[in-house]
């Protein structure tokens, strides 16, 4: 039985469901949050081993901000213990030029991107990789 805790932050309940089902089937403990603020609260409460994060929630860049708050946390930050927590970011497939980005540690502290629609096997392999399993 896998006891790793995964926090899922996405405003779309259907997406949360499609991510939750494969993860739970693989034995992970899955927690959900529907927006930015709930997500931050949940991070402190759940103390997840990994976070799956939607890029667009309240605003088009809320996901980025969320990741930045965590991974660029200063020594006095309430999130400092989550500095190393891996994040998978859910992005819309084939993003337009106005939404250009890629995994770049300076620019965006995110370990992996996962394109929507979610392919359950791809999701699981990325999660396993990041958790070192």
């Amino acid at each position, binding site marked *: 039985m896998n006891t790793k805790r995964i926090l899922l932050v996405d405003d779309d309940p*259907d997406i949360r469901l499609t991510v939750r089902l494969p993860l739970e089937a693989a034995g992970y403990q899955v927690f959900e949050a529907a927006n930015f603020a709930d997500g931050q609260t949940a991070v402190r409460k759940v103390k997840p081993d990994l976070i799956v994060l939607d890029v*667009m929630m309240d605003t088009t860049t809320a996901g980025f901000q969320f990741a930045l708050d965590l991974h660029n946390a200063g020594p006095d930050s309430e999130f400092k213990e989550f500095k190393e927590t891996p994040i998978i970011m859910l992005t*819309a*497939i084939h993003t337009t*030029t*106005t939404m250009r980005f890629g995994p770049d540690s300076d620019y965006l502290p995110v370990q992996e991107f996962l394109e*929507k*629609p979610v392919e359950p096997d791809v999701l699981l392999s990325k999660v396993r990789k990041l958790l070192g399993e």
Partner: protein
Amino acid sequence: MDPSLRIYGNPQPGETPNPGGAATGHRVLIDEELVESVAWLIRLRWIAGIGVILATWFVSKAFRVQVPTQPLLVIGIGILLYNIVFFLIERRYKKTIAPIESYRKLAFVQVGFDWLAMILLIHYSGGIESPAIFFLIFHIIIASIFFPQVTAFGFTILAIVLLALTASLEYFSILPHYAIGGYLDFPLYRNSLYVTGILVFFSCAALITAFLVTSIQKRMRQHEEEIVALTENLQIATSRLQALNDGAQAISSSLELQQVLDRLVKNTSEVMGVRACSIRLLTKTGERLEPVAVFGLSQNYIKKGPIELENNPLAREVLAGRIVNIPDITNTSLLQYPDWALHEGINAMLSAPLTGKNGPMGILRAYSDEQNWFTPDDEIFLAAIAAQGSIAIENALAYQAVEALDATKTNFIRTITHELRSPVSVTRSLLRTITAGYSGEVNEQQKDLIDRAIRRIDFLQKLIDDLLDLAAGKADLKSHEATEPVSLEEILQRVVDRFAAPAKEKGQALDWELQTDQPCMVMASPEGLDRIFNNLISNAVKYTPREGKVTVTLSRSDDDDARIVVEDTGIGIPEEAMEHLFEEFYRAPNAKEFEREGTGLGLTIVKDLVTRFGGRITVHSTPGAGTRFTVSLPLVSEKT
């Protein structure tokens, strides 16, 4: 001081416009003449001084005439000495740009000294008998050129008096008489008839000379004044033309409304030489005029109150298309706020309508401190500026509207992107969760049905992506123009790698040939380039049967373009399909047969992007044998 700078130069910003422009120009020109003449007189005097010395020596040696050599030489040297002083003073004046009054004094003193030297010369060369008397005429000519008529006559009379005095003093032996032995052996200086004759005739000659020269000089000055006045008029005309030209340039150089307006009021007020200028535009409801650009007016005055058409006869008059000249603010019933204007120090106003294609837009107004300032020429000029300004304002307004529309469109596209994609994407994710077995057992038939639904959704997803790409490309020109130097080699490598697996699956050979050793950088967006080659190579792989071959090559053409060729051994494109190939939603009949699904947008997007990046795309195909797409893109020049 170079007067031409002031006469021909544009009025400098901040320089007070001069109401009596012509008079200034004239004075400056006459002054300049005086400055020049002073220098000229000094140059001439070197010759005079040396002339006296040489003549004394020559006459006494060559003709053995007995002249008082010593005093004459002293006079010659004296002339040279005081000329040195004048020369130095003049040089300092020039350096320090002395006021014209100093030059006038210098001229006065110089003429005085010359008079004294001349009388001494006459005295020592025989007094009334001296042939040097004639030279006094030169001095009178010079004085008449230098000074106004009265002063010139004063100097002339002084010359006559000095000569008469010398003659009388010598006559009565109060002054010694220096006879010139060998020239005039019968002394005449005591011959009263001779002395009187010479004096009378000399006086007449001197006065007539002074009269003639000063008269001619006066006429010449009149002509000069006319020329200066004409020059100034020409100058005004030129600077106005220049202003119109500047206005035209402002139209083409800026589409920023505020910039156009600000430039317009500043230029107008400078060129017209007036204190202030303003533009007021009609509000959308057309009831009021709002100040949108102001030059040279106080904030207080601008905020004096709303200009409502109902209460403002002037505004109504101007908006009806007339140019209204109010020469005297105290004497008009047209103004809504005459006291404010007077308090601001404005005494005259000239207003011209700004008229667009759809009727009146606003008012361009010039303000002057002086009553009766604006001439009919000014009216025509302001009307011309207003006409031109109207075009500029209309263009800027249109541009503003287009920009707003563009922003709305871009926003709309973004919203649609999210709104359309999300449900499709989520639906697919949900279905995949079922077929992957995460929601319990699914039987074969159920799985088959869901897989069919997924295939349809995939197509829908692709269609949405393509459509949005196309729409975004068309609406969101700006984001596509934000290009950077991109390495073609890198992009091609990436796209070719992407298709390695699908090609292998079909048993196709996918060859990638780099036929240049120089880097190929083009100005483009990496996403755009990726999309171009993704679509071309994906088509090639898709429409080439099993065991076929797809070749991608990158080379440089002779005319410094990058050339990318995507060639396949596929089904080819029939002749009749060629002309429709890049049309939206078009698919060739044989392509439909070969692959049921396809949006018909891929090549439209490719063509759109290639054109955007300044390139060309050509296609060559033999049905049943293969197709070759050639994309040419301008390389970034190595210098930049």
